[in-house]
């Protein structure tokens, strides 16, 4: 029976409620312990059973996602997913959110998010080689959104650059729904030897449990609980939970941990992320089927007078927990000493299944580890289709006033911050370190070579919250399909994905319905496209003052190139090439950027998705790339065909190349130009290779339409009896300058 320290507050009903536990959950705690918890134990239960750590609302749905495949070495359940990429190598990757901290303090919130996801990767024994950032803010017409954007980008740059992991891609989108609740999702990928992976399991009774890294302070106590609450007016006052990242220490931690792993002495290793020492110790014990006994007096600290409660719940950054073979303590100390990092034996592995916490001589907590981890509650919460959805979906989009000038409408879309070139963001990130970036940011997917491998990897993050808002099932499918399509355009075969699910308060039946539908859509798309889910992260309670964000799944797709020479970009390569459209254009304007930007409406049904067609189009595109036909490939996404073609014309730097052509058929012009029909890819080929491409498409059963030719100073597209014409220079200016103008970022 643990001793309650005299200084600890009494566990009253109010204290229980303040810890976010329901009455039923508290009853379950008492049933597990067969007594009242101490204050420290209450804190431990509260963080471990928080939504953030326990996935209590989402688990039943996540279980429906496909997670297995011949290439999958590790699916969900460890710190990151692992994919066999051949040549004896494995790609280890995962995406994670840091939405709530980034709203309170954008720079440090985003920075510590980067630090956290990097730790998840090297924990598995992989050297982190790249990051991608997926961001959502309110409209840039609002000063607060510009401030958050600037702060978040500075935070990612500040941490990622210094720690030496290049940020090679990402995406950013804007909507009023994120104004009080920005999203900051960061993906990290690392490379490991496929036969030298590490897991977060505590094994071997008597093995030492070693704390390594930075010292513990009162940082972010209850961060995990904060990420499990909605915001109100007082949120910005929750100062003490803000943590400051130290990329320098993290860099040392990466090197020291990889060096330690190479010694063969490591039994299990886990980073201290949300819920710090608590989460890492009970999860390692629970996964290993063992117990852990910790002595808090041995935990390195940087502040005086910290209580056991504070030490267990601190979320100080840049710390890891390692279990090594007995007798290897000195090896650990020597390696960490070389890197000027703390390493302290703080406990031992036991075989009684308990997380036992000692403070000096007395036991301050004693809980079955498994009850905290796998044993956390799981709910199938009520889910109800929102009543307002029908009206939104049925909105009449048949009679939209056409713009005065189609060319100006295109320029306006190209300058829209959602579509405009994001160079102003990515040039603040080192995106070339490690000499891998073969296709730089700016194209559909980033392509990385992998040293020691004949091919490489392509990556893209995608997720259209507006589509999901208008139809979560279709939106969920499209998130997967679009990410896969981007990777295909880069010349790679999509093989697996990680995802971050950002939603509102799960106790609202409408939000829960959105969640369930998005997951159902993602699962169907994953099965159809053969891309299992290797893990991810769920971020709920993304709402402020009762207004939830758009349901926003972010998919991070991993693609594999068997030959790095297949790396493909979206840009036309010269004048006189033929431009084709793979796929089909339908009358679909619902949920489009055109509708939002030019008509201020976020309504209608998102474009339909036929998964068989999607798969065929992507296969055709990859086959064409592999056979050497394709000079450029670019999928159509936000802004539709006209925007996609214009983007092919405009490289990030250098001279744009014109285009002239038409889309046959009887569609109305706005749908032809700007509708966002799915499963379409624009490719260019040398003139004499047109017939070969057409034959290849026919073999794949994919519609293939000759649109026109590249070259000249103008961009001309005819469709539905209308002609869109603009000087390609003017379009280039709109696309290249749009973002800086909207973000009020000065020129160089």
């Amino acid at each position, binding site marked *: 029976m643990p001793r309650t320290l005299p200084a600890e507050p009494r566990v009253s009903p109010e204290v229980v409620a303040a810890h976010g536990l329901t009455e039923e959950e508290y009853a379950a705690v008492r049933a597990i312990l067969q007594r009242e918890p101490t204050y420290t134990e209450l804190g431990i239960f509260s963080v471990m059973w928080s939504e953030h750590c326990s996935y209590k609302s989402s688990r039943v749905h996540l279980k429906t996602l496909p997670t297995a495949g011949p290439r999958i070495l590790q699916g969900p359940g460890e710190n990151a997913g692992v994919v066999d990429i051949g040549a004896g190598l494995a790609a280890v990757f995962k995406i994670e959110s840091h939405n709530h901290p980034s709203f309170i303090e954008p720079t440090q919130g985003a920075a510590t998010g980067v630090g956290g996801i990097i730790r998840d990767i090297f924990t598995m024994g992989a050297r982190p080689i790249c990051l991608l950032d997926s961001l959502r803010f309110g409209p840039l017409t609002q000063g607060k959104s510009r401030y958050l954007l600037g702060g978040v980008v500075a935070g990612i740059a500040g941490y990622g*650059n*210094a720690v030496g992991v290049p940020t090679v891609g990402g995406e950013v989108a804007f909507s009023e729904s994120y104004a009080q609740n920005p999203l900051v999702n960061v993906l990290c990928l690392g490379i490991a030897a496929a036969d030298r992976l590490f897991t977060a399991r505590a094994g071997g009774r008597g093995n030492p449990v070693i704390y390594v890294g930075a010292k513990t302070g009162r940082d972010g106590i209850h961060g995990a609980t904060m990420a499990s609450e909605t915001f109100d007016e007082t949120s910005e006052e929750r100062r003490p939970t803000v943590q400051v990242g130290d990329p320098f220490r993290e860099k040392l931690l990466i090197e020291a941990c990889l060096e330690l792993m190479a010694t063969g002495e490591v039994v299990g290793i886990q980073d201290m992320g949300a819920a710090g020492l608590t989460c890492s110790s009970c999860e390692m014990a629970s996964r290993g089927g063992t117990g852990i006994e910790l002595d808090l007096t041995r935990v390195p600290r940087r502040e005086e007078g910290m209580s056991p409660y504070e030490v267990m719940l601190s979320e100080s950054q840049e710390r890891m927990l390692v279990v090594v073979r007995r007798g290897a303590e000195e090896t650990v100390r020597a390696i960490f000493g070389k890197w000027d990092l703390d390493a302290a034996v703080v406990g031992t592995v036991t075989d009684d299944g308990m997380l036992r916490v000692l403070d000096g001589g007395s036991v301050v907590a004693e809980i079955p580890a498994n009850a905290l981890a796998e044993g956390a509650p799981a709910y199938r919460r009520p889910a109800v289709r929102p009543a307002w959805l029908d009206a939104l979906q049925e909105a009449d989009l048949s009679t939209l006033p056409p713009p005065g000038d189609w060319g100006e409408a295109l320029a306006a879309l190209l300058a829209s911050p959602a579509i405009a070139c994001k160079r102003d963001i990515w040039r603040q990130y080192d995106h070339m370190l490690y*000499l891998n970036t073969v296709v730089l940011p700016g194209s559909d997917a980033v392509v990385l070579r992998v040293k020691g491998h004949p091919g490489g990897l392509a990556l893209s993050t995608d997720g259209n919250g507006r589509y999901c808002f208008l139809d979560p099932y279709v939106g969920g499918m499209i998130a997967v399909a679009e990410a896969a399509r981007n990777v295909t355009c880069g010349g790679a075969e999509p093989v697996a994905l990680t995802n971050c699910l950002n939603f509102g308060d799960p106790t609202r039946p409408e939000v829960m319905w959105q969640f369930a539908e998005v997951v159902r859509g993602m699962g169907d798309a994953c099965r159809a496209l053969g891309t299992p889910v290797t893990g991810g992260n769920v971020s709920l309670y993304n709402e402020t003052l009762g207004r939830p964000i758009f349901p926003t799944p972010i998919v991070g797709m991993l693609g594999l190139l068997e030959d790095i020479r297949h790396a493909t970009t979206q840009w036309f390569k010269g004048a006189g090439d033929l431009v084709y459209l793979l796929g089909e254009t339908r009358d679909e304007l619902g949920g489009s950027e055109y509708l939002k930007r030019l008509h201020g409406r976020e309504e209608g049904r998102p474009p339909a998705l036929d998964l068989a067609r999607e798969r065929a189009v992507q296969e055709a595109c990859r086959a064409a790339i592999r056979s050497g036909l394709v000079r450029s490939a670019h999928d159509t996404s936000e802004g539709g065909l006209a925007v996609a073609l214009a983007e092919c014309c405009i490289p990030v730097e250098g001279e744009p190349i014109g285009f002239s052509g038409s889309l046959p058929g009887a569609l109305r012009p706005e749908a032809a130009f700007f509708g966002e029909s799915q499963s379409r890819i624009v490719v260019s080929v040398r003139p004499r290779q047109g017939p070969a491409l057409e034959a290849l498409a026919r073999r794949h059963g994919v519609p293939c339409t000759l649109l026109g030719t590249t070259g000249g100073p103008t961009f001309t597209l005819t469709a539905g009896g209308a002609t869109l014409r603009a000087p390609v220079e003017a379009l280039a200016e709109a696309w290249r300058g749009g973002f800086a103008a909207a973000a009020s970022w000065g020129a160089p």
Partner: protein
Amino acid sequence: MRFGILVFPGSWSHQDFQYMLGDVMGFEAQVVWHKATGVEGFDCLILPGGFAHGDYLRAGAIARFSPVMPAVIRFAERGGLVLGSCNGFQILCEAGLLPGALLRNASLQYRCQWVHLRVESTATPFTAALAPGRILRMPISHGEGRYHADAETLRRLGGEGRVIFRYCAPDGTQAPEANPNGSAEHIAGICNAQGNVLGLMPHPERAAEGLLGSEDGRLLFDALLARVPG
């Protein structure tokens, strides 16, 4: 030719230099931990990019006191070749091996991008085989690369042919838009009076393979090969 590539806590380009010099160019290249006290046996030392000691306080300020630095200084004084790129350039300035200092970029933002450089002088072995005026394309990646020196120093550097690279437009002209960080006189790289110590903000190791978009970075080391055979 044997290269020693220094590694400070927080360095990150040493791996890239080792790959470029060793795997791509076929030199012997070895990393040297900053706590080493000797640098015997090397013909050329590389101080790579990164954030040594987090670049806390000032870039390079703490690294210059690393245990290895006295040996680096002796090596340079005896005429050994030293190349500092990015953070390495900053450390060389802090250590007094090169004049001036590198300040925060005028944009106040980090910049990672391709730039063009004009070879201004052949006063160092690294550029001895290149024609002055030649344009090279290489990436930069830094937040503190704005070169500063007092007027007298700038005059001397110019007069003695010690400005080795200046940022320029693709056609070689100098324009403020082509200066990515606001450096004085568009300076991207300088050398010491003897010419054996070169510091530059760009990353030659990132421009050594056609796959990555440029092979111009190799030229600095090809030139070396031409001068010091073996």
